[in-house]
């Protein structure tokens, strides 16, 4: 925008409004950051300090310790965290990686098919898939859990045998993959449908089949859209509580760290000092991803919302 022109139209006012806007934004930003900073500061204070004075006393009486992080990571006999949160952190990673890769690949395939291998009713099918976002996850939980534990039957005929994956990682990957598809297909379809037609036609003329086009043209060109959705899905899975609570038991074997953190909060009064560090361990990885890949992330959100 040519600011100079507006400035000449009304110089004093423009400078003033820039200053006012900056001040207002910074005030809100500080207000927005204080709660996080408070927890961050608390996580480096020992138990007595946390109980006897507010975190803002770190400015007048700086006294820091890493003991909370030590207790959270490696466990301590005094708290409920006998083994520490590392197994849960590991579970989160183990849950998240396939729960991002699977829906991304399946959705990219479907999106390409709906956009470029047109068939009778493919547009209607696309709208139907988009409309499936109407189904709240809450509606799927119970039937899906029953499918995993009991299989599917019509009368006495078994259509799908019991999968026996409840309480295993596969039992969490699968629901996350299913729930991600409507949004993923919609976002990737938008992008893939806008790839140049000439490119596809030239490849067909060269004798490439759909699978070759998908692998060698569509996949490489869709990387920005895939990256955007992958980051979105990563944050969604990592931060999820409901799906994890339903499909993973709360045990060290499969439960992600977010479930563990939620159960730590439930234990009122005890172990607040570990809660502080536990929370920071939980949010550290998404924050790193967020700050390093913010551009892609914003692009992903934009693709989903502005249009």
């Amino acid at each position: 925008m040519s600011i100079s022109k507006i400035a000449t139209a009304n110089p004093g006012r423009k400078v003033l409004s820039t200053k006012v806007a900056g001040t207002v934004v910074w005030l809100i930003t500080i207000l927005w950051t204080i709660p996080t900073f408070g927890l961050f500061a608390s996580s480096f204070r020992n138990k007595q300090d946390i109980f006897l004075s507010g975190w803002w006393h770190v400015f007048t009486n700086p006294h820091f310790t890493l003991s909370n992080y030590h207790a959270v990571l490696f466990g301590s006999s005094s708290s409920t965290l006998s083994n520490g949160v590392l197994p849960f952190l590991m579970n989160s990673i183990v849950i998240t990686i396939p729960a991002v890769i699977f829906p991304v690949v399946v959705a990219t395939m479907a999106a390409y098919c709906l956009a470029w291998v047109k068939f009778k009713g493919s547009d209607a099918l696309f709208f139907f898939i988009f409309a499936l976002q109407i189904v709240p996850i809450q509606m799927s939980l119970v039937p899906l859990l029953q499918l995993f534990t009991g299989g599917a039957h019509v009368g006495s005929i078994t259509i799908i045998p019991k999968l026996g994956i409840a309480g295993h990682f596969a039992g969490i990957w699968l629901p996350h993959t299913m729930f991600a598809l409507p949004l993923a297909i919609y976002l990737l379809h938008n992008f893939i449908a806008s790839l140049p037609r000439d490119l596809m036609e030239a490849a067909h003329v060269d004798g490439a089949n759909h699978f070759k086009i998908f692998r060698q043209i569509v996949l490489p060109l869709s990387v920005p859209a895939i990256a955007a959705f992958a980051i979105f899905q990563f944050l969604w899975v990592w931060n999820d509580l409901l799906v994890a609570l339903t499909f993973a038991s709360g045990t060290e074997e499969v439960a992600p760290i977010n479930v563990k953190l939620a159960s730590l909060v439930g234990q009122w009064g005890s172990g607040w000092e570990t809660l502080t560090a536990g929370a920071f361990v939980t949010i550290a990885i998404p924050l790193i991803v967020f700050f390093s890949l913010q551009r892609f992330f914003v692009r992903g959100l934009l693709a989903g919302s502005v249009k």
Partner: protein
Amino acid sequence: MDSFLSTNLSKFEQVVVAVAAFFAILMVVFYLAGKANGRKQRPVAILVLLGPAMVLLTAGLIVPAIQTILFSFKDANSVAFIGFQNYSWLIGNPDMRKVLINTLLWIVVTPFATTALGLFLAIMLDRMKRESVAKSLLFMPMAISFVGASVIWKFVYDYAVPSKPQTGLLSAIVRSLGFKPSNWILTQPLNTFLLMIIFIWVQTGFAMVILSAAIKAVPADIVEASALDGAHGWQLFKNITFPMVRSTTIVVFATMLVTSLKLFDIVRTMTGGNFGTSVISNEMYAEVFVRFDQGRGSALAVILFVFVMPILIYNIRNLRRERTNA
């Protein structure tokens, strides 16, 4: 430590095996399907590319949604049909009525608050210099889970008996202003609004980023022309900027509406649904997995579905209009 290492290695092995198997199967299927030629080529391609998604959507969303509707007319163990009893319980039970009212409060207050604040910040950001750091910090809570956010705010809302020092920020501020702090999380109906603040804190950054992008997309010459015509401040916003970001604002608002409607984590983590703060999603989880009543839990899920429906129908109609215009 040894066993710790080996369990974690075996967990990671599962990931490697699962992902490798997934890609291996895909490669084999692609290779075999690529052999099809002539008239079979297209149907095979459609089956292979679209099939997996359709199977997953059918098993994961379509069939379960129908089953849940059926369950909502059955008893606790989904054996006998009991008609509308679950729904009449939903409406007749005073605790449930409170849950419905709370959910209504959430979907009235939080979408307005987040969208309005997000829009305000987006406009202010557009006028200031060096906006990127502030923008990142305001957006940051979006990366934090609702559970993490709840822990952060637990330390803000913490309350200690008057004889002890107040370590919660809110209590300390209230006390320094000369008032008596109360046990915030137990105070009804204030506590529901305190939980909403957590939601607003997390989601406003999202609204801001989306709206900020929309404002930046408003053509500069239009803004310039009207500025030269003497429009500025509120006039400029009301007559030029807002009409141009109106559709984005509605999308943001609808997204917030759906997110707040399905909200579960904050209530579950902060109060477990106690002290008069429960919402539909939390009650649904409690009915099914704590009180083991599938019928009532399913009825609650169906209520969510009915609430979400008009918003998504609106979105679908928009999408259709866009498609036909394009």
